[in-house]
């Protein structure tokens, strides 16, 4: 027995040595590649130092989502930089994420950076039960395993052995439905529903009535979403989001950063329209709690909860924090004003309503210029820079309101094109649409413009705009690849020629 234990101990010792030996091998050969594959968002944190950014804006899709009729498709962060032209602002955007993810991304900003101020998006809905345990939570938690402050090999082991918050969608649903059932809602006045489940059920059964007294089922469905998203009262002891923001406060103290929480807008106008006082009471009560808690901790909170009107919310049939241009600008303006506390001399009042009339548009497919279908950008091929756009089946898409270019008579489109195999059916599409204009869809066969070369080639095309263009609202230009062949485009330029 003693001999057996000795042999076993020796073998365990060898295993331990092996694992210790694996660690530098992993760090040197595999860690960076794993980071790029499983946690690519870290590149945004790393980029902050070489950019010499003094201010960092971190957010989710609210920062970058645009509406097709926006003239200026820049993000909230970019609008803020208009107010501080002499300050370098860096941006970190991770869609569908929350403060727990922001914390890890901020923690990974190199210590030797120029960062002095951090603006963190605070999304009220992210404190709700169905967001805390949304189906996106498991992949989000997986994404940050490699970002944590642990030895790289240990992080990789945790990633492989699912050493993070892994739950199935069904398990998560059960958790938040239990909260909807069990968490009691407390109002100053008597209210007929004790919890989310009861309230939502009552609305779903009785419906929201229109001015004629008929049930509006679309509004009813939307109302149930609003209840599920906003009918909660933050418990500062148990809500994980509070812990995430507290961690960010601690991190800011440790790194000596100024901190601003940007409490972004919710559609309180629609909430009031659909469900009235009880829901807006809860929303505002939660807002007050967050303001008090964090202002007490020395954090400046930009209160934008009611800053955006209903018509500037992109999604009208869902709860979201996606704003049209005016909404993003309104939020940027409030945040910029808060920033004055730290940079009083650098603040420049900017007229954000100014629209620069452009007739030439260019996208180098590197991701800086935001068009539609940005998910088509890929690093697999490029003509210039490091990326190009695929078309599966649509390429990145130019979409622009025509209001100031309606007197254009033609558009020149040029781009670089790569086909890996002989293609057919690939089209350059120009769409013109508007309430008062005849819908116009024009598809030019790429084969008629390109040679059969399997190398990058330049494509040029002039399209005489149809008469209806003068009455149109929107023009779209993109490549359509219905057969999903492997094609790439880069350096897309669109030039409208104005009638003189």
């Amino acid at each position: 027995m003693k001999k057996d234990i000795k042999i076993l101990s020796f073998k365990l010792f060898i295993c331990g040595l092996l694992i210790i030996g694996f660690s530098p091998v992993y760090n040197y050969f595999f860690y960076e590649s794993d980071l790029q594959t499983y946690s690519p968002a870290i590149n945004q944190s790393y980029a902050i130092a070489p950019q010499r950014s003094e201010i960092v804006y971190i957010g989710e899709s609210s920062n970058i989502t645009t509406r097709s009729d926006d003239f200026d498709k820049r993000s909230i962060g970019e609008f803020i930089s208009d107010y501080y032209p002499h300050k370098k602002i860096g941006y970190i955007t991770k869609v569908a994420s929350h403060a727990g993810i922001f914390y890890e991304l901020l923690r990974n900003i190199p210590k030797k950076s120029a960062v002095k101020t951090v603006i963190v998006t605070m999304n009220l809905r992210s404190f709700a039960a169905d967001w805390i345990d949304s189906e996106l939570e498991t992949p989000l938690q997986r994404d940050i395993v490699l970002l944590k402050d642990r030895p790289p090999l240990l992080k990789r082991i945790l990633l492989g052995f699912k050493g993070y918050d892994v739950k199935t969608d069904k398990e998560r649903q059960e958790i938040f439905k239990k909260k909807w059932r069990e968490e009691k809602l407390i109002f100053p006045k008597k209210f007929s529903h004790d919890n989310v489940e009861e309230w939502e059920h009552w609305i779903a059964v009785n419906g929201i009535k229109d001015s004629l007294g008929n049930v509006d089922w679309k509004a009813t469905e939307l109302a149930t979403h609003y209840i599920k998203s906003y009918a909660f009262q933050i418990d500062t002891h148990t809500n994980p989001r509070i812990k995430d923001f507290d961690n960010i406060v601690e991190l800011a103290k440790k790194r000596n950063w100024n901190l601003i929480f940007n409490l972004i807008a919710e559609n309180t106008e629609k909430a009031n329209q659909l469900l009235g006082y009880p829901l807006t009471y809860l929303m505002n009560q939660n807002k007050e709690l967050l303001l008090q808690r964090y202002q007490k901790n020395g954090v400046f909170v930009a209160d934008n909860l009611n800053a955006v009107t209903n018509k500037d919310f992109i999604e009208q049939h869902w709860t979201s924090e996606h704003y049209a241009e005016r909404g993003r600008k309104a939020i940027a303006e409030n945040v910029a004003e808060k920033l004055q506390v730290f940079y009083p001399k650098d603040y420049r009042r900017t007229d954000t309503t100014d629209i620069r009339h452009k007739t030439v548009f260019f996208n180098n497919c590197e991701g800086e210029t935001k068009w539609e279908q940005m998910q088509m950008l890929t690093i697999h091929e490029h003509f210039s820079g490091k990326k190009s756009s695929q078309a599966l089946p649509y390429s990145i898409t130019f979409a622009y309101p025509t209001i100031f270019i309606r007197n254009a008579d033609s558009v020149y489109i040029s781009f670089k094109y790569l086909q890996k195999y002989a293609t057919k059916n690939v089209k350059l599409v120009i769409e013109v649409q508007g309430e008062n204009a005849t819908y116009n869809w024009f598809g030019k066969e790429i084969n008629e413009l390109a040679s059969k070369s399997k190398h990058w080639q330049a494509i040029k095309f002039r399209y005489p705009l149809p008469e209806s263009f003068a009455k149109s609202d929107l023009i779209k230009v993109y490549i359509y690849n219905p057969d999903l062949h492997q094609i790439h485009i880069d350096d897309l330029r669109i030039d409208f020629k104005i009638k003189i």
Partner: protein
Amino acid sequence: MSFNSIPFLIFFPAITLLFYVLPHKYRWILLLAGSCIFYMSFIPQYILILFTTIVVDYWGALKMEKSSPKNRKKYLVLSIVITCLVLFLFKYFDFFNETTTLICAQIGVPYRVHNLNWVLPIGLSFHTFQSLSYVVEVYRGNQKAERHFGIYSLYVMFYPQLVAGPIERPQNLLTQLREYKVFKTSNISEGSRLILFGFFAKMVVADNLAPYVDEIYANPTLYKQTSVLTGLFFYSFQIYFDFFGYTTIALGCAKLLGYNLMDNFNKPYLAKNLSDFWERWHISLSTWFRDYIYFPLGGNKVSVAKWISNIFIVFLLSGLWHGANLTFLLWGFFHALIFVLERFLKTKLNILNSKNAWITILHALAILKNFVLASFLWIFFRGTDLANIKQIFNRIFNNTLQQDSFQIDTKVWFFLISFILFDVFVLNKRFDFWCADQPVLVRWSVYAVMLFSVMVFSGVQNYPFIYFQF
């Protein structure tokens, strides 16, 4: 608590350590308590269901042993009915209810019964079959009824094989559970080796194949013929390495404690026909069906027509065992059909038994044919519904796409091919047996490569073991 999870990496060494520290008479308590914790880590309240079947079959077996032959049958039927009723309610009721609703709607008969929508307890089909094998063996007089309720409970609940087998027989496991297990380094070495190999098969090979398979089955219309074919061959390997991985870890965990579980696989893709395949694939289930369904029906010692019907009964039940879904029934049906056809062709042609100079090539072709056939049959197993299956076949036989975006990481090919070559051509026997015969340096080099691969190259997405759902 899945095998490939951090809690299990803490749980099982702790149980193993305590097992050897405790005196023999208390070990069953430890293992039973550990098995309860393991099972309850999935859905805690479902332990009551397991407890119900344990009580019923324990009591039924005791009664059977003391009763006259006539009453024995009565208790057997009672035990089987109650045990199968639990399985039926949780697994099959909704399927039969929906089918009945559909048929009644077609013929205009009013029928309205709501589905139960109960979540399926993990491993229900496995431990139900293990319990059934116990009562049948007691009924047949091959096994004495277990008087110790704790030991019997442990036989049903033994954590390494509780949720996905192997489906043990009482003669093997129950007997071992009473034995005194001495601490041996050889058991620890063999067990650890098996666990490492199992982790490698599941986490490095199966989990890295899974995303490609998922993508093809989720969007078959977006991919061209060769990509869809790659996806379906990948699934053949994914399901094999996934289930083989689980079984190997189970065998390893049991071995660490000194218990030997039955083998569940014997290189199934080296089978030359479906009959051969079923002697190599999920052996504990196929022998269960053989011993408790096929033989009692008369096996092959009956008329040809009856034999054919026996084959179809067994395969349709096997399909149904996997899931209450038409797709699984079709999978069983086609297995039965091809099984019967192959048997007729084999007796007529008798090619593989002849002493032909080309016999090696013929064998290789037969293996290839069977692999392709099994892979095509997996479409019915993996397809989400009939429409999905139709899309897959349509894309394979009616290709219209020339290119697509299906790209496979070189690492995946490397692990798949090296594992296949290693498993098929180098070993020709179980990994742990082969490894034990190697010089120390070779052995530890293999361990090092596998350990490193498990740590560094395992798939990152959460893919539960495929057979957990059954």
